[in-house]
């Protein structure tokens, strides 16, 4: 048994090592062909070819250097376009001269003379950006500002590359320019990296079947991985780095994405994107660690069914069905993802896609909205928020499987509970405000809502909440702060589900009379940081908005004190009095 475990561990380490190695294992060579295929606008691609001539057909061994060079090529394109199309100081002088007192927008036609593209652009741009000056007293500074805005926004997006397209293109150009063994033989390397990890992990896990069914918490607080010791910190750092690269620097991980190209082509027919890679690894983590969870808790049918459920929803709903939708030329859609966790549900591009896709698109839209306004309250009323958080949700699924070894790290202090309520409800408010703004913009075409710019706001939400909180902190901090950091402190959907669970639901955790011995296993292993013992030892039921109903407190309780139950609402909260003692009166 020990030997088998070590063998599995060795395979895993080799696979994981190769995976990390493959991150760097490529050289890059950009060619005009590559540029033409990635940039459909002929003019722009020619410009980039021109400005990147120094790097063309040259082989780079480091992706850092390559990306650097590429960025400067983009900068040069933008600079030359600004030079070509920007309004010069001389032209500004002329504008001032021809508008001696009040500024008239019509004057631009006479200043920017000519029938070429440049003049036409300048005329139009000045009208677009400067019409508000019409009739105002002429001030050079204001005219200068208009010219600057044109430089900064107009020229770059029309004739050059704005920062969004630079981000996307850097990624796709890097991927297309890669020369690596992985590219030539992705399947082989997929097997040698991720494949070995999966096989190794399973071989490591399976021998646990020889242990008798029952709680398997021996040695957790002596373990270097599970107790914020060196291995946990190392793992956390790796995860954090992974998320930072995934969300903010995807151009560096193109070699990893190449690994899963064949899988993606098989499913959707398209090349893999970084989020396909992410979804692929994510699903495998849930499956492999789900097997571990099932083996560990095989004495509990509740845990077995629950784990099977998250494994199923991740594999089918989050991973396979959306890819198949794409293969069928339908919109990418995850039927189980719910706003506001799915914060981009009401973004214009997604609404447009759904509305443009006929019956099915409309169905998806209605389905998504029905889940928010009917599904959530009705299911929470009958089952508690667990129906989503620990049975269906992808974030929850990862937390309950990959994150299970870290559940004991959640902070149980009253302080943490206070912080939790402030933070999570703020995120909910933020999500609602952002979405209302986005919808306002969608219907009115006006991006300025009251005092904020809805585009800016959704960008901030995406970066700080969507990527930073849910990804980097949410998963990266598993080995440091426990497996539900995002679900507990950040998820706006959890906040919404929780409010209903707290105030209108039949779900509760029942305390079994006076049987609690205050041992603290329940609180320690509650991933949501609920001090379950506080309630149990005074004979009170546990009704907390954050409880995701994972059932682990009930599983680990050595005295059979806790039970997740759905019953009539009456008596749900229960009195804080222990039964078994006569003549005791309740004082609060």
């Amino acid at each position, binding site marked *: 048994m020990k030997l088998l475990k070590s063998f599995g561990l060795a395979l895993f380490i080799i696979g994981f090592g190769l995976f990390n190695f493959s991150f760097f294992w490529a050289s890059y060579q950009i060619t005009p062909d590559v540029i033409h295929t990635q940039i459909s606008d002929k003019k722009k691609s020619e410009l980039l070819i021109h400005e990147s001539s120094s790097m063309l057909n040259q082989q780079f061994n480091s992706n850092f250097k390559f990306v650097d060079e590429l960025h400067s090529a983009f900068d040069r394109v933008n600079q030359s376009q600004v030079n070509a199309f920007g309004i010069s100081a001389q032209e500004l002088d002329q504008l001032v001269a021809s508008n001696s007192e009040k500024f008239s927008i019509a004057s631009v036609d006479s200043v920017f003379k000519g029938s070429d593209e440049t003049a036409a652009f300048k005329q139009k741009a000045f009208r677009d950006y400067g019409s508000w000056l019409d009739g105002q007293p002429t001030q050079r500074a204001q005219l200068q500002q208009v010219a600057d805005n044109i430089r900064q926004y107009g020229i770059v997006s029309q004739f050059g590359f704005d920062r969004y397209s630079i981000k996307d293109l850097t990624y796709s150009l890097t991927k297309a320019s890669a020369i690596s063994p992985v590219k030539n033989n992705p399947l082989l390397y997929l097997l040698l990296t991720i494949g070995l990890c999966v096989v190794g992990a399973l071989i490591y896990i399976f021998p646990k079947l020889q242990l008798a069914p029952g709680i398997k*918490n021996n*040695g957790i607080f002596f373990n270097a991985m599970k107790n914020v010791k060196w291995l946990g910190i190392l793992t956390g750092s790796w995860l954090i780095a992974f998320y930072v690269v995934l969300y903010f620097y995807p151009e560096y991980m193109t070699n990893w994405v190449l690994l899963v190209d064949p899988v993606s082509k098989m499913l959707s027919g398209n090349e893999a994107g970084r989020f396909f890679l992410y979804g692929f690894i994510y699903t495998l983590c849930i499956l492999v660690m789900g097997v571990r969870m099932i083996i560990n808790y095989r004495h509990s049918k509740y845990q077995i069914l629950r784990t099977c459920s998250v494994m199923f929803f991740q594999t089918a709903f989050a991973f396979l069905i959306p890819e198949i939708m794409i293969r069928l030329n339908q919109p990418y859609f995850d039927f189980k993802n719910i706003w506001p966790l799915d914060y981009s549900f009401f973004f214009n591009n997604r609404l447009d896609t759904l509305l443009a896709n006929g019956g099915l698109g409309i169905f998806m839209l209605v389905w998504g909205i029905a889940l928010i306004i009917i599904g959530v309250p009705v299911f929470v009323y009958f089952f508690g928020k667990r129906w989503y958080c620990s049975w269906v949700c992808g974030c929850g699924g990862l937390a309950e499987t990959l994150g299970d070894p870290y559940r004991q790290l959640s902070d149980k202090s*009253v302080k943490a509970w206070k912080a939790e309520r402030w933070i999570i409800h703020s995120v909910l408010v933020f999500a609602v405000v952002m979405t209302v703004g986005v919808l306002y913009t969608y219907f009115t075409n006006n991006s300025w809502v009251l005092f904020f710019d809805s585009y800016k706001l959704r960008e901030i939400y995406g970066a700080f909440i969507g990527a930073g909180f849910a990804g980097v902190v949410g998963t990266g901090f598993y080995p440091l702060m426990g497996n539900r950091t995002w679900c507990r402190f950040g998820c706006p959907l959890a906040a919404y589900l929780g409010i209903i669970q707290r105030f209108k639901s039949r779900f509760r955790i029942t305390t079994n009379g006076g049987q609690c011995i205050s041992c603290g296993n329940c609180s320690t292993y509650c991933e949501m940081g609920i001090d379950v013992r506080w309630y149990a030892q005074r004979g009170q039921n546990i009704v907390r908005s954050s409880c995701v109903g994972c059932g682990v407190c009930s599983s680990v309780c050595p005295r059979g004190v806790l*039970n997740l139950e759905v019953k009539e609402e009456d008596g749900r909260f229960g009195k804080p009095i*222990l*039964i078994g003692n006569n003549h005791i009166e309740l004082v609060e």
Partner: protein
Amino acid sequence: MKHIVIIGNGISGITAARHIRKRSNHKITIISGESEYFFSRTALMYVYMGHLKFDHTKPYENNFWKKNKIELVFDWVDKVESTTKSLTLRMKGTIQYDTLIIASGAKPNRFGWPGKDLKGVQGLYHKQDLELMEQNTKGVQHAVLVGGGLIGVEMAEMLLSRNISVTFLVRENAFWSNVLPLQEANLISRHIRSHHVDLRFENELKEIKGDSNGRVQSIVTKSGEEIACQFVGVTVGVSPNISFLKDSGIATARGVLVNEFLETNVPDVYALGDCAERTYELPGRRSIEQVWYTGRMMGEIVAQTICGTKTKYEPGPWFNSAKFFDIEYQTYGQVGNELKAHESEFYWEHSSGTKCVHVIWNTMTREFIGINTFGIRMRHEKFDTWLRAKKSVDFVIEHLAEANFDPEFFTRYEKEIMLQFNEKAVLAH
């Protein structure tokens, strides 16, 4: 405002303090020499096994006590002088009290075996015992446990979690058969053995032998067998921890003697928990009950009395629970290890041999007397109600499903149990 001093920060003393605080403004001081803050003794095993850190065993955050104006003194009481109402502490001088609550708990028994003071021989009760066990078991390969109670089986589980093999000497003919009926004792014995414990019945310790460093080397049993081991766990029961009360004027026998109000012979002095010995009868109950729940109940009662509502300690129907490796045990009402003359029994065991239900009732009146359940969780509240209402065994069996407390989706056995019960009833007639 009185000054109430409590000796002992275990569950009894702490419960008393919390309830006095809820009901009054008295000044409360708790003195304990074992640990600065209240922790759950029942969780000590989990600390050794790495399920918990010691901090997790503390049911209240450290600032709870200050917030509730309960003063904690971390020291030993060496002497109690009831005439002057004063206590002498080992380090921090003397303390005056108006009301004294003695909740000093128990200590492990040690009989006069030769070699009982060798290094590597110990019991398990206090936090210090746990720390000692941590040291004593370093590098140990084989351990012998003596005495077959709940703490013994916990120690076995602890040692196995550290890959130390265990020989377990039990005086009786099955594990814990001085408390459990033979059927359950056998079931648990089988389970303990399935965890590779070398469990030996009707076997007693005669002598512990040491090496030249004064460390245990082997033990010799009454049957003359010598077993090599580097650790000996002695779990032959506990007895009240009251030696500091000598010459205090407070009457003691095995424990501190108390009446139904938990009063001692000295006015304004109460005793509760593991150290208290009742001088009055409670049907079917021992005069010293050393379990968590009774300590807690006494704490609730004494608080009521001290705060002006004089209340008798009359616990409701007996209940208890434990866990033996992977099998949970609960009991409600009275199930003795031997059937009494007026009692009848029904025993159901699942084919896996790891779950069972044992029901006892009065043969004549068919009144339900008690139930033991292994591997199936049951609802305390239901049995408490049924026992108080003196329901019949037929009613209990018929409504057993209502008392089930197993998690959702677990296999249910009530039908099977009821069928078997009815079959046996027919046979009996």
